[in-house]
């Protein structure tokens, strides 16, 4: 099974110890690991076979994301293999196909540059793409561009005359200034300034003024995969916590014997199990009926955010003082959970989406 295979690989190739090592060295990119993931078909999980992908679908992508969440594996999987690949698949032209082939091969990584304020809100985009001859001039600032410091290419959302337009440009184009941000989760992200950056009609992904046609499915795909990663993260933190309860002794016995802790652990397991159902449903809906998957995806992200937050808080609490130390891994889970909670829409954002769909 895909999950077992992924788990076996990640336990060996991308344990939390690896993230720790990268953080200590100041690295945010593990190119060798990404190449291995590409060789296994993970980078091309959503890329058609004609472009060299494994085309396994969203449910499978979520399985991979969940397993990566368990070990906090560092990769541009969600940004490139999920978000960018989904965006590119909405566009049926030779350029997009070539880009998909490069993603599947692990030759090109992407980052999505949407946020301009402290919260996810694509509709509020202020960055402009001013028409200039046959092309455009991009000016503005983006922040919290996850995987944006190291990505080869950027998907940039900007305002055009009559709406929003999505651009696909190389990250090293003249006028693009990337400042890597020192993130709490030690993962790659950047603040990016666009100073009169030149873009051609070729750089437009989809239609001018019609960004959402391409971006919305891509966002949903990313949100679903991120929810899956966070559920994996919750499970990883939970396993570590239960393991500790069984081994740590106080008052002469394993602390797992104390009912107060048993019930906290049991409650957390229940929450994780319920959230897992929402994740499975989101993947299934994205594969079977993407037009109507918005509620399922927001439900998954809202639940995953709550559950991951609970899992890391309970993780630290039940570990006691050792859970607060940098030497112990629990802190890495807590920090990643916090970043995941904000990325691509926080709990409130997704709760509102659910509420709207359910007639509130």
């Amino acid at each position: 099974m895909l999950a077992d295979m992924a788990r076996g690989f990640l336990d060996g190739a991308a344990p939390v110890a690896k993230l720790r090592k990268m953080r200590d060295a100041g690295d945010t990119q593990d190119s060798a690991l990404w190449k291995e993931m590409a060789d296994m078909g993970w980078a091309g999980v959503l890329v058609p076979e004609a472009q060299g992908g494994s085309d396994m679908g969203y449910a499978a992508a979520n399985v991979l994301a969940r397993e990566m969440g368990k070990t906090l594996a560092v990769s541009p999987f969600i940004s490139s293999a999920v978000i960018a690949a989904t965006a590119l698949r909405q566009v049926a032209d030779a350029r997009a196909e070539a880009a998909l082939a490069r993603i599947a091969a692990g030759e090109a990584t992407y980052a999505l540059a949407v946020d301009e304020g402290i919260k996810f809100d694509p509709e509020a985009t202020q960055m402009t793409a001013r028409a200039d001859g046959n092309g455009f001039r991009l000016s503005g600032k983006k922040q919290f561009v996850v995987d944006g410091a190291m990505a080869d290419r950027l998907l940039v959302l900007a305002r055009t005359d009559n709406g929003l337009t999505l651009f696909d440009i190389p990250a090293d184009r003249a006028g693009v200034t990337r400042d890597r941000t020192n993130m709490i989760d030690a993962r790659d992200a950047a603040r990016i300034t666009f100073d009169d950056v030149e873009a051609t009609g070729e750089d437009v992904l989809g239609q001018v003024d019609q960004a959402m046609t391409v971006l919305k499915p891509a966002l949903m795909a990313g949100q679903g995969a991120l929810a899956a990663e966070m559920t994996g993260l919750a499970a990883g933190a939970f396993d570590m916590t239960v393991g500790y309860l069984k081994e740590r002794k106080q008052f002469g016995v394993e602390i797992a014997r104390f009912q107060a802790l048993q019930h906290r652990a049991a409650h957390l397991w229940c929450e994780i199990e319920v959230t897992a159902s929402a994740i499975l449903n989101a993947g299934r809906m994205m594969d079977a009926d993407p037009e109507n998957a918005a509620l399922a995806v927001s439900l998954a992200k809202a639940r995953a955010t709550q559950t991951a937050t609970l899992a890391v808080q309970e993780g630290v609490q039940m570990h006691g003082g050792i859970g607060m130390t940098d030497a112990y891994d629990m802190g890495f889970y807590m920090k990643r959970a916090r970043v995941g909670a904000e990325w691509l829409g926080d709990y409130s954002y997704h709760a509102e989406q659910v509420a709207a769909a359910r007639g509130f």
Partner: protein
Amino acid sequence: MSVETTPDAVREETAPDAFREELRAWLEENCPQEMRDGKMAENSICWGGKNWQFTSDAQKQWLERCAARGYTVPTWPKDYGGAGLNRAQEKIFHQEMDRINARKPLQSFGIWMLGPALLHFGSHEQKLHYLPPIARGEIRWCQGYSEPGAGSDLANVQTRGEDKGDHWLVNGQKIWTSYADKADWIFALVRTDREAPKHKGISFLLMNMEDAGVDTRPIKMISGISPFCETFFTDVKVPKDQIVGEENRGWDVAKYLLTHEREMISGGGAGLSGGGRALGAVINDTMEGLTDATLRADAMRCEIDSLAIGLTLERYKDQAEAGQGAGDASAMLKYMGTELNKQRHELMMTAGGSDALEWDGPLGNRAGDWLRTKANSIEGGTSEVMLSIVSRRVLGLPG
């Protein structure tokens, strides 16, 4: 259930197979209009039984028509009064019932609890004898589990069955026997070996409530009604063939039945049966616009959890079809579903404001329903017992 933005529209388009077509036509023709209001309140339920008084001709008609097709227990085998539906057909069945907002034709402890236990542990003769009357709504069952000294510690039951050769002589007392005063028969946990360890001396016996020596006394609850009773057994003779499973192995049957009871109780909590009306919509109706920001936020969270728990119930049902029952995880479903249902009713009370504070006031029995939910996290095993089950059996923490 898949969570869809427009469930009905999507359902219209998916899998319009022969079964669905035929079922839809049958429902259209046979479900009386009065039964298409989706009501699930206590006083709209058809419980069946010898003493059942139908509240309308439509209720009677609906039960009889469904029973004739096996639709009161759609997944039971045809030989035992069911329609023999597989999981995929069962889903379609519920979708089509929800689509026309049909009431359930019959609900009973026979359907939810004894039926599954008999199907698993009963002999063929027992199934033929006991199941069809349940499916037709002719015999109403109640559950004799708890005792004054055996609540959370259920295996401590002391009601005693003395071996008298061709029968057991039963003496003792049960409590919280739901609707014992209205039931025709009772399935009960009875201690048949007082020397054995407590889990190993219990038998699962079936008793006729009309037998000499069986008495019931209703208990008035905080909700104002008396769904629960005390039941007393004084020298009741129970023939030897009225045992399910082996003698002194009744705890196995009891546990199996409890997993079904827990799944059933948790389903009520998710609030997804009967069309799964969103909490927000319910509150909107009461408040003429959900303008209270705090209540709205709480209701949104409750709605999110309801949907996710509903999906979890479906996931476990799918696994059950694939041969993996919910098993110990039914404790999780029960715990999460019932705690949620309590929250849901708290929010509905808040939404109702002072109108909700009257018995049979402008909002009907909202207060009674609210009070009734407080038992959800106690009956069928308390939330704390559920967490202990998860802790020990799922997580493997020491007991």
